[in-house]
């Protein structure tokens, strides 16, 4: 009995000691906080919801943008929640952020949308911004917004870099003209992915007109094994260059091990593929974050759909890997970029592609998400497909000639 109490007392003492020590240490921390408060910029609390964490290139891109935007605007009071699945957890997190004082909340994944809308209905005074979503312009909630960027332009530019590489391989005699086949690892058959691989392909084809492409899907945004296997399958099929739209290092590392050039997405993968990585396009979310946070702080309305472009700084290319990229690539990219900004180059120009052997003059796309998914908007005007104009999220879902889908099950 005595021994027993002695143990309990000892424990209490240790606990007390630890507690004492830490109260001393707490003081400087508090001071620090105070000084931070004094130099604070915008007085607004911001929340960010991410599907995965920093290990995913997709989420890392968002996390960096979130931190960057908050640093630029001088915001210290922000929360980033990672590993939030596309389910009730998203609603709970968003509602919790709203209830604890966040005035604007961002979510980064397509499947978060319903749950963000649910939270937006519950907290009408808080702004909810959802990247890649499609429902804001039909949902008619003043505090719920979608955003995306015209990333197809960036993909096209990255495609040019890939095309230049293919041309170099042709010139050096490493491949022949009938070997001109490239591969693409996609996640799902969503319009976002279709738009991405098509614009990439058109970029490549603007340099090497004979090229064809094979696409395989993994059915997951982040599945390192499946992406690696997908890339391997394409390489074994005879693809001489690979690009991808999925978030792990699977495809880049497969390319590096096989010595096949790779065009990446969302982040530079030069560390994984120093001998194969050419270039990467990405959406820079900082301009949107800064814009939306400023608007929320000033009480101004945020549009239901916001589409970033090259001009807003939302569509970016990472620096070329000069060890792999062909000479003259940068000049070609700059040329195309200038033409895009000037409005003389349209990625989805109807002269650039055919569907079933025919040139398109009209196409009704499903822009307004409704239960029946009916095509509702004419998107071909003035000789090109108007992508990301009627809503921010992509809706280009045509299967153009020259691209073979190996599996469409996702």
């Amino acid at each position, binding site marked *: 009995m005595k021994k*027993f109490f002695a*143990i*309990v007392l000892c*424990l*209490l003492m*240790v*606990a007390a000691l*630890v*507690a004492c020590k*830490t*109260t001393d*240490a*707490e003081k400087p*921390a508090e001071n620090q906080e105070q000084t931070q408060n004094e130099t604070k910029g915008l007085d607004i609390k911001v929340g960010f919801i991410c599907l995965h*964490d*920093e290990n995913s290139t997709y989420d890392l891109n968002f996390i960096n943008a979130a*931190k960057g935007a908050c640093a630029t605007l001088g915001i*210290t009071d*922000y*929360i*980033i*929640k*990672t*590993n939030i*699945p*596309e*389910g*009730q*957890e998203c*609603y*709970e997190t968003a*509602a*919790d952020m709203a*209830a*604890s004082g966040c005035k604007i909340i961002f979510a980064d994944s*397509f*499947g978060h*949308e*319903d*749950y963000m*809308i*649910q939270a937006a209905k519950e907290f009408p005074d808080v702004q909810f911004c959802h990247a890649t979503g499609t429902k804001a312009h039909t949902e008619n909630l003043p505090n719920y917004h979608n955003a995306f960027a015209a990333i197809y332009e960036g993909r096209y530019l990255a495609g040019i870099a890939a095309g230049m590489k293919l041309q170099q391989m042709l010139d050096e005699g490493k491949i022949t003209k009938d070997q001109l086949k490239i591969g693409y690892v996609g996640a*799902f*058959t*969503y319009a976002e992915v279709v738009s991405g691989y098509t614009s990439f392909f058109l970029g490549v084809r603007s340099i090497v007109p004979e090229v064809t492409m094979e696409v395989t899907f993994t*059915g997951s945004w982040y599945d390192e094994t499946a992406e690696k296997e997908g890339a391997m399958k394409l390489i074994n099929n005879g693809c001489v260059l690979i690009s991808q739209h999925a978030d792990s290092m699977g495809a880049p590392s497969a390319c590096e091990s096989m010595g096949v050039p790779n065009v990446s997405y969302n982040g530079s993968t030069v560390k994984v593929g120093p001998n194969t990585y050419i270039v990467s396009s990405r959406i820079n979310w900082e301009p949107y974050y800064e814009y939306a946070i400023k608007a929320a702080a000033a009480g101004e309305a945020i549009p239901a759909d916001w589409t970033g472009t090259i001009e807003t700084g939302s569509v970016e290319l990472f620096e070329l890997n000069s060890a792999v990229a062909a000479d003259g690539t940068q000049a070609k990219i700059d040329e195309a970029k200038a033409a895009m900004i000037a409005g003389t180059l349209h990625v989805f120009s109807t002269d650039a592609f055919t569907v079933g052997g025919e040139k398109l003059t009209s196409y009704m796309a499903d822009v307004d998400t409704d*239960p*029946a*998914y009916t095509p509702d908007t004419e998107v071909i005007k003035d000789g090109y497909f108007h992508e990301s104009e009627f809503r921010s999220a992509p809706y280009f879902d045509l299967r153009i000639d020259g691209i073979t889908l190996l599996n469409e*099950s*996702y």
Partner: protein
Amino acid sequence: MLHISKRSGLPVWKAWLIRGAAILLALVVCSIVTMIVTKLNPITVFKTMFEGTLGTQRRVWVTVYRLVILLGISLAVTPAFKMRFWNIGAEGQVLIGAFATAICMFYAGKMPFFQNPDIPLSVKNLILIPCMVLASLLAGALWGFLPAFFKSRWNTNETLFTLMMNYVALQLVKFMISYRGFKYIWSPNGTVVGIINSDASLGSYGVGWLPEIGGSRYLLPTAVIGVLTVVLYLYLRYSKHGYEIAVVGESERTASYSGIKVNRVIIRTMVLSGMLCGLVGCLLAGTDRTLTDTLVDGRGYTAVMVSWMSKFNPIGMIFSSFLIVFMQYGAKEVASRPELGLNHSFADILTGIILFFIIGCEFFINYQLQFSRHKKREV
């Protein structure tokens, strides 16, 4: 030298004192680890945990909701455990219950009756919700019945069987909510399950959502589980069934000698366990209004721990559930604060330390250590 012997009947208050000391010790170790690894003030970390679970009124409600769900699953697995039937299949039983509920909600939302805007929502729900409950009970019962039936008939290993049933349920749901499964089986035009019946332009808006009582959607599950706790306490303690369960648990031979039909008790109890799990699944899907593969989120396994930690006492489970919910979600809050600069893994480390101590202390409640005198003299 060290000598370990079994304790005979430690007073209850003393057992709780040991548990309290274990938690305290766990916090101390957590503090030390925090200071060494992160150079952060542990008080800040614990304060953050507290804020994350009880900081606002909303968080209190969410914590209560998480608590009652965990408590509900723990209650559900308890009859089987008391019978010494190693049922670790709660995860799958809850998920399959949620799945059955979601199917009812989804397909009802497509029927003309439920889409008719002239029929009040309360009437629709009065018809649909009992169907959802029934479906979830049946689904859970099936998931509980199968391992029990095989056990009683062919003496299969129930631990492996129930574990495998979890994967069957999980993969089934994963497939059904995947882009492909959803498109081909549920809705040819859909892409994701999302929030079921959430299209405000349709008459089926809100069909099958469990009603919000007093402005909170979390009150109903709390009330249901509250009643369940009392009922199960009485069932295990005072009913004939409860007694049979205890006897079978102590010794199957004694049970059959005293005229208890052991196989019948096993099957009956597992069906009950499964049904209760299914009911919790119904509460989850109906309250969250969705179906995802993370809906149960490992709580079917955590519940096993809660049940054991509380010695199968439903009242004790309230406390252990709260403790675990507090730790887990507090740790998540710690991970989300950029000023702390910690990620999720660190929060998991803290939870791990705390659980280690809580489970470890049961050893000291059941056994005592004696240091022999010879050794002491030598020193």
